[in-house]
């Protein structure tokens, strides 16, 4: 069901852990739906992401998308990081099963939430960054149809 890349990132997650005194921390998702992602960013004075770590409660796809998202933003400027979309994460993983695409949205949202936290802490505004939703699943509707 998962690609080799997804399995690799699930089994050997990159950048898993915490950053003490991080520049920005973002937590998204909810336990009710079965996935929560937390991203820690260490951002230097030139607004470059020097380090990034994640923690995830969730399925294989949730872990793999978190891992891949951290790889895609590490070493980037905050503006480059902001442009990392869920589609980029999915493509970098060689695809996800359709029911798991929401996990990649969560990864994008977690990065944004951590950037938002960084902006708040430093009293700056990052152009193009919106206040994160508290619950990524708020707008989702169940698709099942019974006959």
């Amino acid at each position, binding site marked *: 069901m998962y690609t080799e890349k997804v399995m690799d990132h699930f089994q050997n997650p990159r950048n898993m852990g915490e950053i003490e005194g991080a520049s920005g921390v973002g*937590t998204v998702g909810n*336990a*009710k739906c*079965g996935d929560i992602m937390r991203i820690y960013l260490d951002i230097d004075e030139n607004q470059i992401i020097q380090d990034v770590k994640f*923690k995830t409660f969730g*399925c294989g796809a*949730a872990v793999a998308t978190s891992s891949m998202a951290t790889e895609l933003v590490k070493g980037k400027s905050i503006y480059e990081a902001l442009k990392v979309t869920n589609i980029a994460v999915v493509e970098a993983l060689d695809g996800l099963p359709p029911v*798991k695409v929401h996990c990649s949205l969560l990864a994008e949202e977690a990065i944004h939430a951590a950037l938002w936290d960084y902006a708040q802490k430093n009293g700056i505004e990052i152009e193009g960054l919106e206040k994160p939703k508290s619950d990524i699943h708020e707008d989702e509707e169940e698709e099942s149809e019974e006959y």
Partner: protein
Amino acid sequence: MNKVIYLDNAATTKVAREVVEAMIPYFTENYGNPSSVYSFASKNKETITKQREIIADALGAKANEIYFTAGGSESDNWALKATAEAYKDKGNHIITTKIEHHAILHTAEYLEKNGFEVTYLDVDENGRVRLEDLKAAIRPTTILISVMFANNEIGTIEPIKEIGAIAKEHGILFHTDAVQAFGQVPINVDECNIDMLSASGHKLNGPKGIGFLYIRKGVKIRSFVHGGGQERKRRAGTENVPGIVGIGTAAARAARTMEERTSKEAKLRDYLIRRVLEEVPYTKLNGHPEKRLPNNANFSFRFIEGESLLIMLDMKGICASSGSACTSGSLDPSHVLLAIGLPHEIAHGSLRLTLSEETTKEEIDYVVESIKEIVTKLRNMSPLYEDFVKKNKK
């Protein structure tokens, strides 16, 4: 360990060698249609009758009360839909539970869309129906009570005898989905006042695609599959002779080996439960501690998610299942775990292990060690665990 450790026997079981051997001649030699006149084929009719007798014996029923179907789901659909249709003049109310298999729940929901009213009983924290709830739910219009014999996820065995007595006292038909229980626990339809009972072949070392519905004589439900006159005109379609021989042989085998097999499984199961609860912190056993299927263990590991756990177990060659949303294709975790009162995040971290007679102590030891390692790894990755540890430090 390189071999597969199969601990998902509630999903399906390995077909027993003697079952396969009994079935083979009915594919290649005695392949005739039992409805044909010539003796080459018509002797298959006797073969079918013999299987019916074996199954009836196992249930304390009569042979002509056993109707072969394509499996548990068909039996459940038939029992509910046909009862609703046949007894709609008497009433339009059905009582079932929140923890039934989807073959019952979705059928009940379908009936609701067609003018029937359904009460879904709550269960206690162990997954047992409360008899006072059942009594309170009964209305003058109640035509059917359908309560599973034993739950497929948490293994809890329901108070079927007491439920049957209540149904009889009120003159209401009683159906039980015994797909998980048949062959695992002794069942007597008269003692329990069961009017209809569903079972499936592949849960008891028999083949897939075959099951039966026991219908007590006098229950006036009609055919669900229309066509030829097979199964006393109540279930059309050329008989699945190899399948019927398979389920008959499996039922005979299950009855013969039940005592020894289930006591061996229960002993290992208890060892598994004891070790996991003692050695993995923040873990809960789901389902009734004693009144549970002999081969079922169901745990919730806090702070982790079930699908991740299943994938990591799979990488170690261990086959198991979970009530996590990610394994069900929806965002909600198992309805059974929610019904016993587990919060969503704990229900997501559930693991069901169902043993077979072939499960060994060495396998269980390996599984316990694997669980310990994986749970630790996933908790280290979990923001929920991080928050919990930080909160406790304060």
